[in-house]
């Protein structure tokens, strides 16, 4: 399989599924007899299906690549490429923010991290006005601190850093 095919998203997704099933089935072989029965009943057909899917996706992607190589560069295809590039940029941006939310909550907890992250996302991620971003941050803080911690009396996660430093 060529490198260009491997990096096609559809093929890559099918490959990831195959890898998960192969790993899970291989691990199941090490379980006692009763414990491995169902994982193997599920894992083996899943591996076969995933393998077929990888081949199908690779063939489909291969045909499209061939077609794209043969086709002349037109204004329309250039516009399509630009659109895809824009989507990829937005995708990276959204993944960046998702990881920021994850890391923020993990290390600094909900009450401290959420208002900052909401403000950051609205102002810098989506170019909203300062007013909207600040209102959003205050609203989030009020819901988390006021509603959950005080009104509902549900203690929220304080973050690993707070736990490490203050016990």
């Amino acid at each position, binding site marked *: 399989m060529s490198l260009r095919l491997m990096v096609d*998203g*559809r093929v*890559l*997704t099918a490959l*990831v*599924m195959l890898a*998960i*099933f192969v790993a*899970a089935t291989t*691990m*199941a072989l090490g*379980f*006692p007899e*009763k*414990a491995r029965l*169902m*994982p193997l009943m*599920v*894992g083996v*057909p*899943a591996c076969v*299906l*995933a393998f*077929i*899917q990888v081949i*199908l996706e690779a063939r489909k992607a291969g045909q499209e690549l061939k077609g794209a190589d043969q086709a002349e560069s037109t204004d329309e295809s250039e516009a399509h490429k630009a659109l895809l590039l824009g*989507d990829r940029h*937005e*995708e990276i*941006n*959204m*993944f960046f*923010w*998702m*990881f920021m*939310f*994850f890391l923020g*909550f*993990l290390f600094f907890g*909900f009450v401290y991290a*959420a208002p900052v*992250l*909401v403000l950051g*996302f*609205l102002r810098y*991620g*989506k170019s*909203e006005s300062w007013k*909207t971003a600040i209102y*959003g941050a205050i*609203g*989030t803080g009020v819901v*988390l601190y006021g509603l*959950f911690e005080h009104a*509902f009396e*549900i203690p*929220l*996660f304080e973050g*690993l850093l707070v736990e490490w430093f203050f016990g």
Partner: protein
Amino acid sequence: MDVGGIFESLWTILGSSQNLLMLFIAVPVGMFFGAIPGLGGKLGIVLCIPFVFGMDPMAGAIFLLAMHSVVHTGGSIPSILFGVPGTGPDAATIVDGLPMTRKGEAGRALGASLGASGVGGVIGGLFLLAILPLLRPVVLAFSPAEFFLLAIFGITFIAMLSGDSLSKGLMVGLLGLMMAFISLDPHTGTPRYTFGQLFLWDGVDIITAVLGIFAIPEMIALGVSGGAMSMVGKTGAKYGMGQVIDGIFDVFRHWGLTLRTSIIGAFIGMIPGLGGDAASWICYGHAVQSSKTPERFGKGAVEGVIAPETANNSKEGGSLLPTLFFAVPGSSGMAILLGAFVMLGIQPGPAMALTGMGTVWTLIWALMLANVLAVFMFLAMAPAFGYLSYVRGSLLIPFVLTLTYLGSFLSHRAWENLVLLTVLGVLGYFLKKYNWSRPPFVIGLILGPIAEDSFHKAMALWGPSFLLRPGAMIMIGLIVVSVTFYIWRTVKANNKKGEGHVAQAHG
């Protein structure tokens, strides 16, 4: 039938200020999630989970069920006013709802949809009440053999939920099943796929898995699309309250159709996997077929609004049945609700027929009351609901992400769930992007432990001959019928496509 018990359950709601309050809050929240295209009931439940955490189980369950049951009532608003379905099953309402709006009958269409939703929801609940006495002995007669096959039957319905590709749908379902095995094996105590992590010994948290596979990918996709959630124009149609009330009366003018489509919808809801899309389109088809003037449909016939809307709401009553008594969710929305019930301490399953009938009746009442309440709330807040369709998606993303992470943490109070949520969120996004149907994942995750446990019990009791028990043979028959139906449907669709291509080539 324990009539006293049924009305006692009604008093559980009406006599408790907390339960009543939950009902009053749930209805506008559910309509909100329905009215904003792209949100929907599934996301609604997962986002409300943090708010019901630690609440009295019954109050929490009433809130979530009531909210979920009126989502389609709100979903019909953008379908009728803008031609953009609030939720998938509301797409059928566009066919006649939008032409009515263009003819200047937006209020009448909204009233018809509202009345139909309310009546459909109530009939769905009554259908469930009526069928329970017949169902109870069936539930109690189920042995592990039948339960194993029932789980397999549920899994075959993955095929129905698989969208365009059966193999992709099956694989996602098998992934859900595989994830269900992450835990200490209940028979040998062997840790399976736990990687030395204590928090995985009890299994993967269903709420976290559902949030990861559904909520996070939706938000990333929304951000990538630029936050244009509804694609709705700048101005909506204007309508008067008189028109809305006239539309509500239309439902009673066509009482025969309303009754028939409500019962059809509730019946379809009982069949796991068929889902809301099937119910609304089948009922729309029935309305056309049974009409003396079918040529009016598609041009603004009010029956074309009534039929899908009654079905949308009545199917919720039907789908409660397999969800509560067999723990086999009737739809992907019900699968999430099932996970939420378990989190609240309500354990669906056959034991419900013995000790949990009070809970079942209370939930049925909640479903019916929510549908009635939705009608009055809509009348009171009609103009505001129309504006909901203009809400910018980008503004919702950070709040939804925050609630998603919060819900995942609160479901087990384990920070490790945040890591699992992120990993599943990334996987879920690519599954969504490359058209791998995601609902089968939830079905697999929920049915996995039922299938495994029942299989081992049946083998211990009867050996492989458990497959020859009469109940088991009936279940095997049902599995064969469902698979054959799927294959027949696919072949028929492919033939149609082929004929279309040939006609195009000749034309």
